[in-house]
């Protein structure tokens, strides 16, 4: 069962990855087809409503969150400042998602690779599929085999899922989306390109993190933060590209 699932994921990756140029060799872009999908959530906060069907053009998104190693290569190539936790003994491990980056840092990384941050709509389409599933894997509840999450009371870490803080970016294959994208829920909050309520000072992060409680660990929760804030030990990103 385990092997067959791994083979399935590899097959998905091989198929989708071949469709687009891959600017980050160890983090392929996964193609998300265009079309209508369910966006928003009537059961969440007011800023998540309404649940509606919208049209979105095809795009591609990194299979995993950007890792420390990938970010360090960017720093070495450009002279951009390092991630705040790049030297941290736990958070700075290669293979783990980079954390301690501002919106501008994340956008610069993506631009360097000819990419951009995903929009909120792209995040939700990647994380919920077309039919508005609760989670990337469907509607089954979150558990420690599918996502790196926090405890039930905001906002402490929980190692029952195997990791007290960040987990490897390619971990939790059981929590992959139907398109094969990993850790769209949990592990680290991910910067999107969208301003919050039109105020560009605040940008929206999506997806919850390793310390998120169930309230925050959803595919529709909108976390708005000062775009310059770069001290989050649970804030990272991945990149996207338009295909139209």
């Amino acid at each position, binding site marked *: 069962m385990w092997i067959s699932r791994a083979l399935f994921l590899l097959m998905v990756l091989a198929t989708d990855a071949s469709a687009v140029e891959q600017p980050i060799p160890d983090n392929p872009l996964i193609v998300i087809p265009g079309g209508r999908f369910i966006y928003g959530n009537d059961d969440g906060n007011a800023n998540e409503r309404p649940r509606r069907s919208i049209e979105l053009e095809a795009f591609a998104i990194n299979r995993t969150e950007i890792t420390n190693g990938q970010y360090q290569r960017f720093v070495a190539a450009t002279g951009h400042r390092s991630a705040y936790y790049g030297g941290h003994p736990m958070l700075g491990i290669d293979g783990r998602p980079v954390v301690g980056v501002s919106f501008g840092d994340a956008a610069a990384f993506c631009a360097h690779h000819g990419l951009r941050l995903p929009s909120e709509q792209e995040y939700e389409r990647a994380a919920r599929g077309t039919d508005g599933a609760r989670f990337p894997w469907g509607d089954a509840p979150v558990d420690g085999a599918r996502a790196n999450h926090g405890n039930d009371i905001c*906002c402490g870490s929980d190692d029952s899922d195997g990791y007290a803080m960040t987990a490897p970016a390619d971990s939790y294959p059981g929590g992959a989306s139907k398109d094969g994208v990993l850790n769209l829920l949990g592990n680290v909050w991910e910067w999107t390109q969208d301003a919050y309520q039109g105020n560009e*000072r*605040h940008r929206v992060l999506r997806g919850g993190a390793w310390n998120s409680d169930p309230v925050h660990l959803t595919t529709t929760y909108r*976390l708005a933060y*000062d775009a310059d804030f770069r*001290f989050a030990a649970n804030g990272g990103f991945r990149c996207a590209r338009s295909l139209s």
Partner: protein
Amino acid sequence: MRSLVELTFLVALLTISGAAAEPVASPDYRLTVEHRQGARFAGVARDGDALLITNLADGRLYRRDAAGEILPFGPVLPHGLDTFGDPTGPYRVERTGQSFIVAQGWTPAGQTTGPLDHALLRISEAGIATVVSSDLWNPYDFAIAGKDFIVVDSARNSLERVSSTTGARATVFVFKRLKTSGAALETLSPTEFADKQTVEFDAVPTGIAAHDGRLFVSLFGGFPFLPGSGRVVSLPDVGTPTSAKVEADNLNAPVDVAFEAPRAMLVLEHGAFAQATGWTAGSGRLLRLDLQTGKREVLLDGLTRPVSVLVFDRQLIVVSDLEGNLHFLNHR
């Protein structure tokens, strides 16, 4: 680890932003500064005519004699960055009789915990270190209370009484979390704080001073280090008090406290924190507060990452910082 903010912040001290102007002293004082390249000075204490200094950069204790010569003494103690990115090592030193007592911080990241980590240590004149107690998490400062030590544990957020003879530890007081208005944080995150009446943050104890039968403790407000969220409180120096009296509030990350004269309290503010860029260079201050009248004076302004203040004598105050500076304030 526990946090009440969704985006979790780990680092307290490392990042500074901006270029600081030179520190400026009150007209009543003449300021001289000695700089040691690469040093991260922390604790300062008096030993006769000499000054004792701890250096987190190399884990050494130093003695500066009256002529100004600085020499290391004692063993090299564990030092480095902790898992939060802060410097750890020998935070404080004091002479007690024929030996020295050191508050040694928690284990540096990436190092195996040794017997000298997170401990109160005794260093003999011959430089031999023994453990008074390692039943502590992050001993940051201490006061001498008879045959005991009152230790500030800035990880437990508590005061711990440690017997100098047996090393037995007993909790004296645990500092409750502090509260602030959520509106104060709305600019950081409109979704997390705008609709909250209050937001809690840690009351991290830092410096301690025994004075007039009470223990005065500076509380360094935890993340998000809001302006004015720090305070100084006092407790009786005996027994296990159930409450602490607020002696001063509206302080910016107070990191140490001392007394220049009865009721003349000196408070060292670590500085102002900017959410986007970290600790602001030159924002640390040394204040004098008259506990009777409430009057506040700035004795020294423009400090960057100050750590410890010592009233050496009636004429001299010494302030250390993590930039490798010793500031000498001589009363005119």
